[in-house]
């Protein structure tokens, strides 16, 4: 019992260590973070302006509604980008600095290692996505009188579990290919969003892509967020989107840890932890 408590304490301190390290890095690269924030904001603007473009081209749409639909898509894209990026950097950045061997030889379970990064990614991602959302909404003077932000936050938190699980699987890529693994993580992010109705309803997609949309957590996150912000949906009314995300999360997190562990064993067998090895 005492030994189990000591192990638990050890793992919690390790988890705190992961959060602490990521916080130090964000702090030390603060100006780069500001630059990336402006890049995200600019990227989001280019998407959201499409709504105005449709009207300018003679389209008859509810401008506020279409603008908000696009804004939600762009913000979820950037949020997912942050979560995936931080998880992929679990390996990529550490290989670059050469610290990876010290992390992998520490008595820290891989689950705690990855969950620590995932937790930080969720916290940091939510803060950054919220600021982008508020800034762009203010820029366009969007009115969201029915919005239920509490439901929106709960949806994002639940979606994050499965995003982290899938992110763990992509984090293994730089172990297999130090040069191209990171970029492939962005490919995974793009593929997930393209089938999830990021800027359009899933119903416009070909049938095989609609089938893929069913197993993508982003589909439910996007649909749920739009219901919550545009129509003021309550948690009860988005349960149809929440339970599939919970199910995918329950499967994807252990699967992500398992895949990463396989990658780690492959790297240890073939001497790939050290860059020149």
């Amino acid at each position, binding site marked *: 019992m005492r030994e189990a408590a000591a192990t638990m*304490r*050890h793992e919690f*301190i*390790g988890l*705190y*260590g*992961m959060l*602490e*390290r990521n916080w*130090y*890095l964000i702090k*030390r*690269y603060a100006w780069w973070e500001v630059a990336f924030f402006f890049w995200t904001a600019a990227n989001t603007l280019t998407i959201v302006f499409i709504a105005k473009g449709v009207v300018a081209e003679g389209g008859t749409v509810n401008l506020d509604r279409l603008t908000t639909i696009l804004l939600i898509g762009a913000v979820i894209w950037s949020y997912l980008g942050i979560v995936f990026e931080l998880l992929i950097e679990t390996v990529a950045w550490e290989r670059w*600095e*050469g*610290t990876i*061997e*010290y*992390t*992998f*030889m*520490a*008595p*820290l*379970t891989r689950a705690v290692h990855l969950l620590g990064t995932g937790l930080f990614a969720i916290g940091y991602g939510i803060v950054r996505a919220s600021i982008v959302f508020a800034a762009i909404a203010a820029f366009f003077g969007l009115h969201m009188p029915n919005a239920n932000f509490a439901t929106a936050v709960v949806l994002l938190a639940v979606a994050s579990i499965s995003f982290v699980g899938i992110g763990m699987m992509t984090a293994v890529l730089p172990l297999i290919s130090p040069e191209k693994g990171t970029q492939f993580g962005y490919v995974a992010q793009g593929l997930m969003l393209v089938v999830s109705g990021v800027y359009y309803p899933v119903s416009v997609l070909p049938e095989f892509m609609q089938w893929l949309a069913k197993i993508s957590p982003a589909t439910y996150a996007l649909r749920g967020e739009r219901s919550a912000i545009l129509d003021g949906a309550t948690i009860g009314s988005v349960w149809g989107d929440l339970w599939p995300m919970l199910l995918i999360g329950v499967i994807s997190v252990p699967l992500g840890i398992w895949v990463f562990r396989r990658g780690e*064993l492959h790297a*240890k*067998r*073939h*001497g790939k*932890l*050290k860059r*020149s*090895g």
Partner: protein
Amino acid sequence: MFAVEVNNLRKEFFRRDATRTHMRRRRRRVAALEGVTFTMERGECVAILGQNGSGKSTLVRLLSTLLLPDGGSARIFGHDVVKESRPVQRLVNRVSVEASFFKKMSSEENLAYAARFYGIPPSVTKTAIPEILERVGFPAGRRHEPMENLSRGMQQKVALARALLTSPVLLLLDEPTTGLDPRSKLEVQDFIRDVWTSHDATILLCTHDLREAEVLADRVGILDRGRLIALDPAEVLKEQHDVETLEEAFFAATGRAFEEEEDEDAERGVFA
């Protein structure tokens, strides 16, 4: 119980040749360690001498759970490095030739998060980090500076502090003084001696500095092309080959001079 018990340890890597046969590059088997066997007593300091590519770093990586062996076994204080990696990781720390850190972070930040991975809470590191940095001769006032502002010697002192902060029972030193200026080299060597005598630590020192091996270690091993061909006190090695210096003993044992490194490294293509 031995501190380190290595039995017929083998590790090989596969490297792709640059030349292609039938559109495919040929895979070449390179043996990094071939049946290495030795033991170390608790509190002993053993130096392993070898040229670049001789398998020194592979040995250190296998003992620190960073590589999986292809055969044989290695036990640290009775724990198998493959089957019981977690207990091994709690007992071992390592200082390598590259002082790897997050360069934008300060020495204090780098040490703090690394200590957490070993279960050391902030309440302990708050006082332990300045103390340990002082012990390794690192100026306390510079502990908030980014690592990138520090000299190579300073960074290596922080690397030693990182290893000692976790109170390892087995310290693996993989060329800790390579590339340091003479003064930093002496300071690091003095500190290793200090740790060895005051910490009850067992030390495995891999080096190609013959003097360092002779001065610091109880026994000196010669690792040649992945084979441990000798492991005895330096004086015994010299007597065995009837020579005056350790360099001559190395030459007599391997049949090659210590300087013949580059070709060896390129040919074997294993960890330095």
